[in-house]
């Protein structure tokens, strides 16, 4: 199989020059009493795109949702180990969940715009935290929509319902909505899985342009996409115990061309379940 890599991935700087925006240490995650992932340790470097790949059910979404504690909406969950956000333990008691989630934004697999206007969707996060005046809010909305490459398509219809947009536009709207609160990290869970190749390409370009402003972690089932957009890649998998584990983490070129584990090689070459 042939992969094309991102320029910056080919000349990836050594990891010692990079600052970890998130540092995960020996993380285990439980839904009720059911362990979903265990002993995951890896860094998500600032200003880089980290791809998370692996077979279905290996805990990629679980891992991502543990990074901004959105998983806690899903009932009784438990975490062992540590996740540090620029050195601060996100599971510490002092952490304000709402602040945490504001700084670590999320884009979901299925586009989930609110049933309100395009403008109100993007303005939502800003309005929750402050009482912005109209002018500055307008500016924020416009720049978020521009960053998400959606501005030109919707600028004349900002007051129209977001539900009237196409799936790809809705997903870019969700990205704009997440960007409007100026997060430090953006977690994306299979953001292109419901989109056609053109919309997918737009989102990939978008990810690339955002890389300079923020850190991105993206779950994807599309190996080509992982190789195109990311600088680092984490490969998750499960064994007989059905508990997800991190098999290998490294520079994207290395994972795709010279993985040290045979399971990784098999998976990226498509020789795995």
């Amino acid at each position, binding site marked *: 199989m042939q992969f094309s890599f991102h320029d910056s991935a080919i000349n990836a700087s050594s990891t010692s020059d990079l600052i970890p925006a998130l540092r995960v240490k020996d993380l285990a995650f439980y839904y009720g009493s059911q362990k979903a992932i265990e002993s995951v340790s890896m860094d998500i470097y600032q200003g880089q795109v980290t791809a998370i790949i692996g077979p279905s059910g290996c805990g990629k979404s679980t891992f991502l949702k543990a990074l901004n504690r959105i998983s806690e909406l899903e009932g009784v969950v438990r975490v062992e180990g540590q996740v540090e956000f620029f050195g601060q333990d996100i599971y510490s008691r002092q952490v304000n969940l709402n602040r945490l*989630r504001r700084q670590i*934004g999320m884009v979901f697999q299925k586009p989930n715009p*609110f049933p309100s*206007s395009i403008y109100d969707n993007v303005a939502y996060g800003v309005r929750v935290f402050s009482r912005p005046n109209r002018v500055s809010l307008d500016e924020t909305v416009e720049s978020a929509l521009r960053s998400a490459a959606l501005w030109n398509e919707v600028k004349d219809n900002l007051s129209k319902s977001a539900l009237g947009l196409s799936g790809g536009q809705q997903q870019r709207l969700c990205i704009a*909505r997440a960007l409007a609160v100026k997060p430090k990290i953006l977690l994306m869970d299979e953001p292109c899985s419901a989109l056609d190749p053109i919309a997918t390409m737009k989102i990939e370009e978008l990810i690339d342009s955002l890389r300079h402003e923020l850190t991105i972690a993206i779950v994807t089932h599309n190996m080509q996409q992982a190789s195109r957009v990311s600088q680092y890649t984490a490969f998750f998998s499960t064994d007989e115990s059905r508990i997800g584990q991190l098999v290998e983490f490294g520079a994207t070129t290395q994972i795709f061309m010279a993985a040290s584990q045979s399971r990784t090689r098999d998976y990226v070459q498509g020789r795995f379940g």
Partner: protein
Amino acid sequence: MTASPEPAKKSISRDMLQGVNLTGQEGNHSLVDQGFTWLVQGVSVSVVVILGWMSWVIFGQARPAIEQFGLGFLWTQNWDVNELVFGALPYIYGTLVSSAIALFIALPIGLAVAIVTSESFLPPWLRSPIAFIVELIAAIPSVIVGLWGIFVLIPFLQPIQQWLFQHFSWIPIFNSEPAGPSMLIAGIILAIMILPTIAAISRDVLIAIPKELRSASASLGATPWETTFRVLLPSAISGILGAAMLGLGRALGETMAVTMVIGNSDQISLSLLDPGNTIPALLANQFAEASDGLHIGALMYLALILFALTLIVNMIAIVMVKFLSANGQS
């Protein structure tokens, strides 16, 4: 250049047609199917017929009163069985006011119950019991609610009514010495009776909102309450309105419990601490003794008005729901 070879054309052979047959009678014209279709159509038509028939009978019986009093019936105040002078205003007023009080109390409480039992503000082991108990209120026969009103609620609320009168009598709605039964108590009883309707429907509407919207809101840093007020309630607004209108419809028509606690006074009073009367309560009280044609006619005229009131409420509800969902809210 070599063009790709033309695929050899084959004609459809007999073998291929084996089992390929799109015509036939089975399925759509079977007797059971046909019979069931007729049955369902018959039932739905008969519902409409019964409704029309009922209105026709009521209208027919109301004729004498309609001819005698005309539309003036709606805004005159006398109700004298001996003199055969009838005016509907006190009962229309009482019906509307007691139902409005009921809605005013039951809507916020019902919504609160719906919110705490559908979202994760309470631990799960508390949520379902609360929802269940509130829904159970709907199963209490209205005579029992009325008895409870007389023996428990009135004695319990009488001091509060006194207190309202003593401290707030400068507000017109509390401007009379309470004697026990009152418009306020009737409103509260009605509120209790329509609470389960409002709570249960609003809860179902809230639960039906996709989980993804909650995650989206939380991932933008909203607290559960902010999510509730900014996303969930706006998304559920048409359903909640529907619930409120259904509750209002029930309150307008409720008879037994209201008769027992409202005091059955034919005077219109602004004060909610005064007794009053409603259309259904008056019908229940007087219909058995009514013998004169005009008296029966007046009562039937009232019934017709009640019918129209509930119809209007339901039509407003439908229009509002349509309007709100057309605005992309739902």
